[in-house]
């Protein structure tokens, strides 16, 4: 690396008098000394990057690029993983070749007292040998980032994991530290893009006010006009990206605007400004597609299994905590199939992923939309309900079946596809009798699963909140509402059945007993996807539209059955009424498209 033009970086040490917005600001926190180099990217663009001078500088964002490998005449499909600290990231799988090219980038957080050693593992993958570790190397990033080099990239030998010292190939990679000024600008650019509703590249006062509001800093909110004037250096009644970057940098030095990360909610240390910026930048980057490597794995072995990385995401080991950040990159969710005893990956319709990202990915988006979001979601759902009840919508059934071909078993469906005149009719399809055998049918002391679904069960509400439901306002009382809540349910056992679009959408009684009552609770139609459930900012179970029923049983006492509507699928229909006796396994109702 180095690429010839290594030199002192005046901007980072210059505290006044520079011509750019960023250089006019005092920045003691980024006054470290770097060597500048230019890194050429695979796409032809180039960007400023830096090398460290000493261990003291080992803090910031490092951009690691796994470029290519030479696997010494050994042809196969290849993927590489980089493990750094608690996380592992993986590249895509290369073509069948002995010289795979990935050009996969990942931003890594460098911390003074954090990890320095990165382990690179290269796996072969083919029909016979799935994800077989072929070679590895370990790289001291501090050493790499401080050493003098004239090359854009470095080449490391890959060692055979089974034979000490045997070289099986070579890998080329580059690593540089992101310019702190660039980090600030990128961050400003990112939040500006989120807040810039009319996409003119600037923030109007109204957009700026929303941004300050989203930061959750009351002091700043009270003087947003003052802040706007301070930011609007050229007096054009709008704040540009440069102006915003300058304001954020200046404020972070003096009176921080951002007290907690708007994405993951982590409280930010006022004293550690560089880490704050780095944290925000990485958090905002997640899920945007800006980073090529996928990640969140615990080990390189996990990373080598395509599906496995989702486990670690949902298992909450991400360095930036749980919730929106961890869920934001999900277009697949990992679940454990009880029948086959295997982990399986669940597809989510891209349209749904997009809507979820737009709304739930950032606290900012969610916070700002506030009441607006509820109306939008309701409107989308009502519109969807109307569309799905038209005869034209039946045309979507084959596409839907094709999309979920491994997950919808048409042989189980009571009627052939031609029977369904609308998509909604297919959505609430019935199954052939006997398709779902009921466990211990003769024993009412054995409860059964109420829906074809992804289940989470917790002995207590506390466990549920520890492992899954992260909404800060969740409570059983809030879930059931005043009319149906009783103290017997306090810290009761929670069982959550989450239905995915492809599922059989009728739900059944889990127990035998008599239905005491039904109570409708109006509310929003947020998604019930783990992205939202795992978010500290969403309280989907206590804010969504739902209908609560109480079943009085001989063996379990009272059982509360709550059907919760969600985005698009907000219509809840019960096929029983108060006073009816239900046998476990009886159909109890269904969800359909609508508001």
């Amino acid at each position, binding site marked *: 690396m180095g690429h010839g033009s290594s030199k002192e970086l005046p901007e980072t040490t210059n505290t006044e008098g520079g011509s750019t917005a960023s250089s006019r600001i005092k920045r003691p926190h980024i006054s470290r000394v770097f060597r500048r180099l230019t890194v050429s990217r695979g796409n032809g663009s180039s960007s400023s990057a830096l090398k460290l001078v000493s261990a003291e500088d080992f803090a910031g964002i490092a951009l690691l690029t796994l470029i290519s490998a030479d696997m010494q005449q050994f042809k196969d499909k290849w993927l590489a993983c980089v493990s750094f600290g608690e996380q592992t990231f993986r590249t895509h799988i290369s073509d069948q070749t002995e010289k795979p090219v990935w050009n996969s980038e990942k931003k890594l957080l460098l911390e003074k007292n954090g990890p320095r050693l990165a382990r690179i593992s290269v796996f072969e993958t083919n029909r016979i040998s799935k994800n077989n570790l072929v070679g590895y190397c370990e790289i001291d990033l501090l050493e790499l980032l401080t050493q003098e080099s004239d090359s854009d990239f470095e080449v490391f030998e890959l060692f055979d994991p089974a034979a000490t010292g045997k070289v099986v190939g070579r890998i080329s990679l580059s690593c540089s530290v992101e310019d702190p000024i660039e980090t600030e600008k990128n961050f400003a650019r990112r939040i500006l893009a989120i807040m810039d509703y009319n996409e003119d590249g600037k923030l109007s006062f109204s957009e700026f006010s929303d941004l300050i509001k989203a930061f959750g800093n009351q002091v700043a909110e009270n003087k947003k006009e003052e802040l706007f004037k301070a930011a609007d250096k050229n007096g054009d009644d709008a704040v540009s990206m440069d102006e915003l970057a300058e304001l954020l940098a200046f404020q972070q030095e003096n009176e921080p605007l951002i007290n907690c990360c708007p994405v993951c909610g982590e409280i930010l240390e006022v004293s550690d400004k560089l880490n704050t910026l780095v944290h925000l930048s990485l958090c905002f980057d997640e899920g945007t597609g800006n980073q090529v490597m996928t990640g969140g794995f615990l080990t390189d072995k996990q990373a080598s299994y395509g599906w496995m990385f989702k486990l670690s995401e949902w298992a909450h080991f991400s360095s930036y905590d749980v919730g929106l950040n961890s869920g934001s990159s999900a277009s697949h969710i990992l*679940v454990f199939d009880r029948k086959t005893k295997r982990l399986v990956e669940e597809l989510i319709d891209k349209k749904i992923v997009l809507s979820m990202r737009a709304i739930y990915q950032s606290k900012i988006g969610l916070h700002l939309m506030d009441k607006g979001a509820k109306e939008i979601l309701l409107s989308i759902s009502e519109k969807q309900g109307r569309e799905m009840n038209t005869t034209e919508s039946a045309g979507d059934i084959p596409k839907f079946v094709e999309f979920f071909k491994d997950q919808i078993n048409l042989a189980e469906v009571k009627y052939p596809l031609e029977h369904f005149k609308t998509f909604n009719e297919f959505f609430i399809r019935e199954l052939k009798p006997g398709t779902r055998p009921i466990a211990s049918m003769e024993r009412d*002391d054995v*409860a059964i699963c109420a829906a074809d679904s992804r289940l989470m069960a917790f002995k207590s509400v506390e466990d549920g909140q520890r492992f*899954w439901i992260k909404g800060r306002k969740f409570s059983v009382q809030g879930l059931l509402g005043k009319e149906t809540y009783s103290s017997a349910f*306090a810290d009761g056992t929670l069982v959550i*059945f989450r239905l995915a679009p492809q599922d*059989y959408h009728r739900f059944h009684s889990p127990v035998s007993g008599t239905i005491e009552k039904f109570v409708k609770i109006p509310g929003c139609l947020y998604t019930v996807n783990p992205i939202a459930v795992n978010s500290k900012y969403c309280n989907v179970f206590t804010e969504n539209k739902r209908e609560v029923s109480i079943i009085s049983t001989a*063996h379990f006492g009272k059982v509360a059955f709550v059907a919760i509507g969600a985005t698009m699928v907000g219509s809840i229909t019960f096929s029983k009424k108060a006073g009816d006796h239900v046998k476990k396994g009886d159909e109890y109702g269904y*969800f359909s498209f609508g508001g």
Partner: protein
Amino acid sequence: STVICVFEKDAIEIDEDLLANSARSLETLVSVGMKLGVATNKQAKVNL
């Protein structure tokens, strides 16, 4: 959409595999009718 069942405290002993997966924040794919758990009350024990 989601269904949530709330059982009274200590009224049900949920199947261990379901609890174990959930404790790993891992959802379990289930079908209608699969066993969920057994009542813990005395009457249930007598029946057993």
